[in-house]
C-alpha cells in the first residue's frame, strides 16, 4: 500500500513539474511585460527608464533559463517568491486563500453526494417511471444552467426577495462562525447544484448497471429483503464509480470556482489567479497554478486509494 502510494506520488510530482514548467514558459513567451504593466497607469505609457530599472530589479533581464532555474530552486525550498505587485510572499497569499476555495468545494461535495446518491438510486429503482423522468430532467436542467446564472438567481431569490441570507462576502470563521457559515451556504449550494446533477446521473447509471449483476440475483436467492439488498449489495458496489467521478469533478473545481467566487464576492484562490494573470505577475501565477495542479494530482491519488479501500479486487500491493 505505502509503496504504491509512493510510486504514484513520484509520477504525480513529475506531472506537476511538467505543468509548472509549461506555465512558466508560456507566460514568458506571450506578449505583455509585467514591469510595464505595473508602471503604466490607465492609458499613459510608462517611463522606459523606470521600466528597465524595474525589470532589472525583478530579475527579468537574466536569460530565461537562468530565471527558470532560479524559480525552480526557490520552489524546491518552499519559497514561491514575492509578488511583483506588492512584494508580499506568494505562499502567504495562497495559504490564506486556498482554504476558502477548498471549503466551498468540500461543502458542495458533501451536499451533492448526500442528496445525489439517494436521488440517483431512487431514479434507477424507478427507471423509466415518472419519478425517474422528473429526476433525470432536473439533472439535465441543472447541468445545463451555468453556475453564474444559478448564483445570480439564488441571490435574487434568497438574498433580495426572501432576505434569508446575505448576498455575498466573507467573514473569517474565527471572527464570527455563524456569519461565516451563512456566507458559505449560498456559494456552496450553487456549486453543489451542478455537481448534484453529475452525481445523480452517475449514481443512476451505476445502480442500473449493478442491478444486472449476478450477485444481486444471489442476494435475492438468499431471501434477503429489498432494502438490505439495495444497501449492502447494490449501492455499495454502485458507489465506486460515483466516487471516482466525484474526485475528478472536485479536481476540476479547484481551478474552476472563478465564477462562483466572483458572484458571491468570495476571496478564494481562483479570483486571485485571474488578477495575477491580468497583471502578468509571474511568481503569483506559477505559485497558484502549481498549487492547483498539486491538488488536482493529489486528489486523483486519493480517489485511487479510496477506490482500493472500497473494492478489494483492486490490489495496491504488487
Amino acid at each position, binding site marked *: 500500500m505505502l509503496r504504491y502510494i509512493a510510486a504514484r506520488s513520484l509520477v504525480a510530482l513529475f506531472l506537476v513539474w511538467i*505543468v509548472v514548467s509549461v506555465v512558466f514558459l508560456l507566460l514568458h513567451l506571450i506578449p505583455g511585460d509585467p514591469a510595464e504593466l505595473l508602471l503604466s497607469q490607465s492609458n499613459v505609457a510608462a517611463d522606459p527608464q523606470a521600466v528597465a530599472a524595474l525589470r532589472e530589479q525583478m530579475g527579468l533581464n537574466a536569460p530565461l533559463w537562468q530565471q527558470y532555474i532560479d524559480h525552480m530552486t526557490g520552489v524546491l525550498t518552499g519559497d514561491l517568491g514575492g509578488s511583483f505587485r506588492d512584494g508580499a510572499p506568494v505562499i502567504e497569499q495562497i495559504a490564506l486563500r486556498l482554504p476558502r476555495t477548498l471549503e466551498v468545494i468540500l461543502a458542495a461535495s458533501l451536499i451533492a453526494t448526500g442528496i445525489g446518491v439517494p436521488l440517483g438510486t431512487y431514479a434507477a429503482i424507478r427507471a423509466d417511471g415518472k419519478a425517474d423522468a422528473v429526476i433525470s430532467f432536473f439533472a439535465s436542467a441543472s447541468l445545463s444552467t451555468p453556475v453564474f446564472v444559478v448564483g445570480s438567481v439564488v441571490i435574487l431569490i434568497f438574498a433580495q426577495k426572501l432576505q434569508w441570507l446575505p448576498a455575498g462576502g466573507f467573514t473569517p470563521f474565527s471572527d464570527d462562525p455563524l456569519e461565516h457559515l451563512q456566507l458559505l451556504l449560498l456559494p456552496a449550494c450553487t456549486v453543489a447544484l451542478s455537481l448534484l446533477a453529475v452525481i445523480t446521473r452517475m449514481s443512476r447509471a451505476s445502480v442500473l448497471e449493478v442491478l444486472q449483476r449476478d450477485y444481486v440475483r444471489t442476494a435475492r436467492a438468499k431471501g434477503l429483503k*429489498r432494502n438490505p439488498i439495495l444497501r449492502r449489495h447494490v449501492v455499495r458496489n454502485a458507489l465506486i464509480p460515483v466516487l471516482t467521478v466525484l474526485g475528478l469533478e472536485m479536481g476540476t473545481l479547484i481551478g474552476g470556482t*472563478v465564477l462562483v467566487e466572483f458572484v458571491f464576492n468570495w476571496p478564494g484562490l481562483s479570483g486571485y489567479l485571474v488578477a495575477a494573470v491580468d497583471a502578468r505577475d509571474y511568481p503569483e501565477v506559477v505559485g497558484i497554478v502549481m498549487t492547483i495542479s498539486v491538488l488536482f494530482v493529489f486528489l486523483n491519488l486519493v480517489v485511487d486509494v479510496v477506490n482500493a479501500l472500497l473494492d*478489494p479486487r483492486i490490489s495496491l500491493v504488487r
Partner: protein
Amino acid sequence: MSRSVRKLILPGTIAALIVATVLLAPVLPLQDVRGMDIPNRFAGPSAGHWLGQDDFGRDVLSRLIWGGRASLFIAVGSAIFAAIIGTALGLLGGYFRGAVELVTVRAAEIILCLPPLLLALLVVTILGAGTWPLVLALTILYTPNYARVVYAATQQVRGLDFVTAQRAMGTHPMTILVRTILPNVLPPLLVQMSLVVASAMVIESGLSFLGLGVVPPTPSWGLMIRSARGAMEVAPLLLVWPSLALAGTILTFNLLCDRLQSALDPRAVTAGGALWLRPRSAAAKKRITSLEAEADAPLLEIRDMSIAVRDMELVRRVSLTVRPGETVALVGESGSGKTLTGLAMTGLLPDTLRVTGGTALYTTRAGKAVDLAKLDEEGIRTLRGEEVSMVFQDAAAALNPVLRIGEQVAEAIRAHHEVEGEALQTRVVELLRQVGIPDPEQRARAYPHELSGGQRQRAMIAVAVANNPRLLIADEPTTALDPTIQAQILQLFAQLKCDTPGMGMIFVTHDLAVVAEIADRVTVMYAGEVVEEGPVAEVFERPRHPYTAALIASVPEGGAARLTAIPGSVPSPRQMPRGCRFAPRCGFATERCSAHPPPAEHPAPGRVTRCFHWETVT
C-alpha cells in the same frame, strides 16, 4: 421510426427554431438593439417592448435575440473550427499511429490536463477580450475532445476488412481517410458537436459575464446577466430572461446530444431497472392462499408449466416431480429451457420472462402446499434460501466482490433467522468447513477474488445450504470448473445429500456423465419441452426417445460404440416445428412426426417419453 429516433424530434426542433431565430435576427421586425431610451429605463413589458426595457431603456427582446446570435456564433463557430482541426488530428493519429499519433492526438490531450475555464481564462486574458479571442480560446479548448473521439473511431474502422482491402489495393491513404473512414466516424462526431456547442456556450457566457468575453455594446446573454445583477432590486425580470434563454438553449443542445447518442448507439442505453424492486408493479401477482398439502405429496410437483417472453414461448408445458431425498437431473442442450425452469422455482426469472401457465406445487416445512409459479415477490422471498435454495453456475460473478465470504454466508442465515454475534460466526465457520473449505476461520475473512475457482463454488454452496433448504436447485454448478475440481464438487453434492436426508435436489446440467453420478431420476429437455423422463439407470440402459439416445451416443464415456454428433441445431423459439420439435434432426422421423406433436407415452411405470416411435428407438 424507432423510439430513440422519435425522441430526437423535440430537442431537434427546438434547436432548429433557436438557430433560425438568431439567423433571421436582421430581418425580424425587432426594435433597434442599441436604441437607448433613458426616460423609460427598466420599463416593464409593453406592446412595443414585449419583454420590457433594460437599464438604458433598450428593448430586451431584441437584445435577447441578438445576444443569442453572438453566443451561438461563438459557440457554433468554435465547435466547427475545433471539429475541423480535431478531426484532422484524430484521423491522422488514428490511421498512421506511431510518431504521428504522438504529435497529433497525444499532444492535443495535454490541454485536457487543465481545468477548461482556467485555460479559457488564460487565453483571453493574454489576447484581450472580444469575439475572436473567445473563438480561438474555445477552439483550442475543444480540439482535443474531437481528436480523441475521431481517433478512437478511426482505430475501430481502420481494422475493418474493407479498409484493409483498400490498403492492399494500394489506394492513397488520403483517399482512404476522406472517402472511407470519414463517413464512418461522422456519427460520433455529430454527438460530440452538440456536446461542444452546449459546453462552449457555458464558457462563453461565463467569460462574458466576467467581462472577459463579448465586448459591450454588442449584446450577449452573459453580459445581459452581468448588467441585470446590478439592477436586481429594481427589475428582477431583466435577470430572468437571459438566464432562461441561456439555460434553455444549453439544455436543448445537451438533450440533443444525449438522444443522438442513444439513437446512434442503442447499446449504450441501459436496461430499464428491475421489476422486483417495485412491489406494486403490474408484474406482482396476487397472493394465493396456501392449502394443506396431502400427506404423501411430493416435495415439488411442476405441472404443465410454460414460460414466455412476450408472446414467444421458451418453455412449454413442462412437468417435473421431486420427492423428498430425491435428486432429479434436468438435462438438455443450451437453450432447452432447463435453467429457466430452475429459475422459475425461485422466482428469479429475468424481468422480461413470465410464467404463463401451469402450476408448481411445493410442500413447505409446515406441510402447506404453495404454488411457486404464482407467489408474489414477498411470498417467494420468505421461501428463498430457507426452503428453496439455488447454486449458480458462475460463482465468481454470483458472489459479491466487495463483501467477505463469511459476511455473505452470514447474510443468508440472518435473512431468515435471528442469530447474531458469536453464534452466527460459529455457524458460518461450521458451514464453510462442511463444504470443504480448508482453514474456514481464516477463509471466512477472505474476499471472493482471493479464493480459487473451486473454493468459490464451495462458498456459493455454503450460502445455498446455510439454512438447510428442503429443495436445492443447482444450475450447472460444475460447468465453469476444471475437470478435477468438477469431480470434487460433485462429491461434495453427494456428501450433502447424505448429510441432509429429505433434501430434494434439481441438478441442471448438460453433462450426462454428471447425471449418472449424482441423480436418481433424469428429465431430458429439448427446445423448451420435456422429451423423456425416468430413473437414471433405466433411461441410460434403454432410452425411449431418439434425442436421449443421441445425447448418450455423443458422450465419450457414455459407453457408446462410436461417438455420434447430433446433426443440425436446436430450432429457434420463433420457428418451432409444428409437430415433434426434434423431428427435423431425428433419424426416426416420419410424416406423422412433423404433422402432430407426439403425446406423452408411458413405456414403463415412472417413465415418460414424447415420441411416436419410442418402441423402435432402442
